[in-house]
């Protein structure tokens, strides 16, 4: 576990922020759920919130809504401490889905909309709109329990979106969705972000996160261990190169490189050498060395998968 959070470049600090979690601390008995958790989420972006099971993601999300009491720390919205009025303009999809099983879905959504300060007619209209949008038209008077698991999930999403929230917090929104459901969810999250909504969601499906999010925070044992733009995290702090030279499956040429230029991280079975470029070193010197060793079949800047980053900073599998 790294002690200092790895951040990807100075652009994070200069960006506008809407949601800030500052030093959130909460213990449950001897278990530390949040240990001074600090990160911020810019508006109009889909922000991924990652971490192994038990890292404190759900507790942090609950803290945003005030449903879990904090021992220390503060949740801020648009530069000031979050208020109850603010929370009425937030949308929440908790990890443990929960709606009334024997209530008709239209009534249910209307009810939840009204609890977020909508008038009854506006809430009803919005409920109909989302029911149609999520492919549930004609099921308005169905009871929730009569719907399939995936459709219940859609209703749960509609419940979070009903009142056109300024902040959308979704705990594992992709869990249990079929590919069509994943596409719908992705499209809706992207659309909301484009409309200026701050979208924060947690997930274990890192391939999906890579695809959906612009930026992420990775937390472990209640602390942020990495955060920043997805592209930056994947590039890493130092540039890496993937080079393959014909006729040298062991990558012997690379081991002769000056360590002040680059060092070998690993050699793959097909002879591709993964190199970490020294700071300020010129990648062309590596190319020169490779060409001197033989025909260069492959030369590129290497990126890590988000899952690799995750494994590195948490020491755990995704």
């Amino acid at each position, binding site marked *: 576990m790294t002690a200092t959070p790895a951040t990807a470049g100075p652009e994070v600090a200069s960006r506008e922020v809407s949601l800030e979690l500052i030093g959130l601390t909460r213990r449950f008995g001897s278990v530390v759920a949040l240990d001074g958790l600090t990160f911020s989420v810019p508006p109009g972006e889909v922000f991924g919130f990652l971490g192994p099971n038990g890292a404190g993601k759900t507790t942090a999300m609950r803290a945003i809504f005030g*449903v879990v009491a904090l021992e220390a720390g503060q949740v801020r919205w648009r530069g000031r401490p979050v208020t109850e009025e603010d929370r009425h303009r937030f949308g929440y999809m908790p990890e443990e889905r*929960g*709606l*009334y099983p024997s209530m008709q879905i239209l*009534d249910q959504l209307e009810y939840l909309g009204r609890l977020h300060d909508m008038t009854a007619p506006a809430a009803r209209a919005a409920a109909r709109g989302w029911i149609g949008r999520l492919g549930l038209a004609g099921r308005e008077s169905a009871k929730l329990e009569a719907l399939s698991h995936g459709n219940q999930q859609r209703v749960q999403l509609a*419940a979070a979106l009903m009142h056109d929230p300024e902040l959308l917090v979704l705990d594992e929104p992709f869990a249990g969705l079929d590919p069509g459901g994943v596409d719908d969810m992705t499209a809706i999250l992207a659309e909301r972000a484009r409309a200026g909504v701050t979208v924060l969601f947690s997930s274990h499906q890192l391939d999906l996160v890579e695809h959906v999010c612009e930026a992420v925070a990775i937390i472990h044992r209640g602390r942020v261990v990495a955060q920043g733009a997805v592209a930056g995290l994947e590039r890493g702090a130092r540039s890496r190169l993937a080079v393959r030279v014909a006729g040298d499956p062991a990558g012997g040429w690379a081991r002769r490189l000056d360590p002040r230029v680059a060092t070998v991280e690993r050699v793959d079975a097909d002879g591709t050498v993964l190199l970490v470029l020294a700071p300020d070193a010129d990648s062309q010197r590596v190319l020169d060395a490779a060409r001197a060793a033989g025909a260069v079949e492959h030369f590129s800047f290497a990126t890590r998968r988000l899952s690799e980053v995750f494994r590195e900073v948490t020491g755990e599998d995704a």
Partner: protein
Amino acid sequence: MTAAGPGSRRSANRRWLRLTAIVAEREIRQRVRSRAFAVSTIVLLLVVAAGVTIPAIVAHNAKPQRVGIVGGQAAAMTEIVTEAGHLTGTAVTVVREPSVAAAGAALRSGRLDVVLVDDREVVVKQVSVTGSGGSGGGLPAAIADVAGLSRLLGQLPPGASARGVTLPVRGLTPPAAGLSRRLTGLFTVVLVWILISAYGSQIAMGVGEEKANRIVEVILASVRPIQLLVGKVAGIGILALAQAALMVATFLGLGAAVGSSLVHGAAPGIVITGAVFLVLGYAFYCTAFAAAGSLVSRQSDVGTVILPVQIPLIIAYALSYTVIYANGANAFYHVLGFLPPTAPVAMPVLYAAGDVPAWQAAVSAALVAVGTVWMARTAATIYGRSILRTGSRVRLRQVLARDAGG
């Protein structure tokens, strides 16, 4: 957190009430729509209707009343008794008794129901205070009327007014203080008991459902636990009161229509006392049921956690029958009448049975009101602390031991 001006506070209060009202409205709407509500309302009304009309019908078709006659002209007296039987719709059998003493013995042993002594008096075993609640319905009074009138008719010119000629009706034993009052008291207690336990367990089930389904997490993201709690018990309470009002209206309306003796006993005091303690009892118990419901993590556990809440009610309810059917309450039951958990059931019984004066009922009501405030605070704390706790069932001691920061 918000600006503390009086205007913003007022608008915050309005908002608080509005959200609470939305919660209450959902409770009412969902229940009124359910088949279970329609069925339970109809069943309760049928029970009330049966309770009122069947005794009245039975009284009208009472077993033939055996009327003893002592002295005088047997034929004339038989005619009087038969006429009184016609008037009250009661079949009568006339039996000649040799003496007042013999007739009295027959009354005591139950061989006779009423005795007409010549032109002088009508004797029954026990006079009913309300005049119609005693054995044989209105027969003794009718015999007294007819006999008095026929004695007079022989002496008066035609057209003369015949008022105040009824023979005295004498009872052999002191009158029982309003059996019908007691029965009205019983009706009240049954109503209080049914409504508190039925609606109380609905509250606990509803809270347990919300917790088990985790919908609380969605709702508590926009309302506070106390609003959810108040909205729920207010919504269900309004329904409980509406159902109670319907039952009382049926009781009074049908009772008046069939001339039930139960309704004659429904002195306004008993009805008011019953209503006050119904409201207080609901208020006292509703938050306790909600707190109990918030401890479970599966809905199936609700039955287990509400039993301790119901025990005081069960005790008071079970003992109330002994008070109603025996004459008077013992000291223990009097104590129950002043303890907030048992008073909502015990006090209406004591009052209906005439065992306590009105001021004592008022003192008891005040004690329950104080107890309700305490209970609401405690229950709201328990509810607020345990409603979002998942995992195994929350122990009460755990919840109460935690500091306010939890």
